[in-house]
């Protein structure tokens, strides 16, 4: 299936899968560090496992971004 992840079309070798499985395929090591928006709605983290991603869906992985460098 084709889905759009962070604005880019990607082909996933499955007809559908849940968000946790998608995070795994996309090698997101720490799912607790990412907010997932599916077709414009922010998903609850607890529902990653039961939320299905299918053909044509638009997904955004939004990461925490705070600061950059070690303080002395």
């Amino acid at each position, binding site marked *: 299936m084709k889905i759009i992840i962070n604005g880019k079309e990607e082909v996933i070798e499955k007809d559908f899968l849940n968000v946790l499985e998608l995070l795994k395929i996309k090698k997101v090591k720490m799912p607790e560090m990412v*907010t997932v928006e599916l077709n414009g*709605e922010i998903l609850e983290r607890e529902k990653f496992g039961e939320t299905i991603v299918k053909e044509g869906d638009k997904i955004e992985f939004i*990461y925490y*971004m*705070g*600061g*950059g*460098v*070690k*303080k002395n």
Partner: protein
Amino acid sequence: MKLTNEQIERYSRQIILKEVGGKGQEKLLNSKVLVIGAGGLGSPALLYLAAAGIGTLGIVDGDTVDITNLQRQVIHFTDDIKKEKVLSAREKIEKINPDINVVTYNTKVNASNIREIIKEYDFIIDGTDNFPAKFLINDACYFEKKPYSHGGILRFQGQTMTYTPGSACYRCIFETPPPKGAIPSCSEAGIIGSMAGLLGVIQASEAIKYLLSAGELLTNKLLFIDILNLEFRIINIKRNRKCPLCGESPEIKNLIDIEQPVCEISI
């Protein structure tokens, strides 16, 4: 307040813009913007806000200038090492534009002082370096009904969004600060100075647009920038009904200081 001849000349290149004009310039000169953090984001934001003639600029920062700051915190110079950041920033602003009234707060924001500080201002810029401060600013601006610009940066990337009362807030995207230990380790992280500069300048532009009621703000949107791959993307964000702050059944009713001793990160 009427513009003086000198002010008309100083600001002439923006007064000719139809979105600014003489009226808009007077508005800017009568406005008050608070920049929290005089670091990688706050430095460029302050320089441009000062040059544009924002009448009152508040600066909150409890740190002193360190040599490692100079790579990106462009309001501080080599001679300023060990100087209070608020003082160093004030000196530059006064040199750029003597029109500006600078108010300094040589402290960090916390749950007990932030509402009192932001109350005085028309727009707030989050230029802080840590998640507890970012969540605190978001919550305080929500409770005080103040518009603010969020900014976060990491390596070659940045993200920014603007909050105005009624729009999606930072907690609509990120309910809570990241769990302990989940932040990329300090030694792995880093930041390119120009990325911080770009983001801080966007934050300053949001403040100016808000004050002038001009154009479109980054409300209900998150702008993501990757300067390494030159990617600019706007992600639409809706208000989250489950938001613990502004959702239908909010859990957060008061400001609290979030303890997060994971690792001190500084922009």
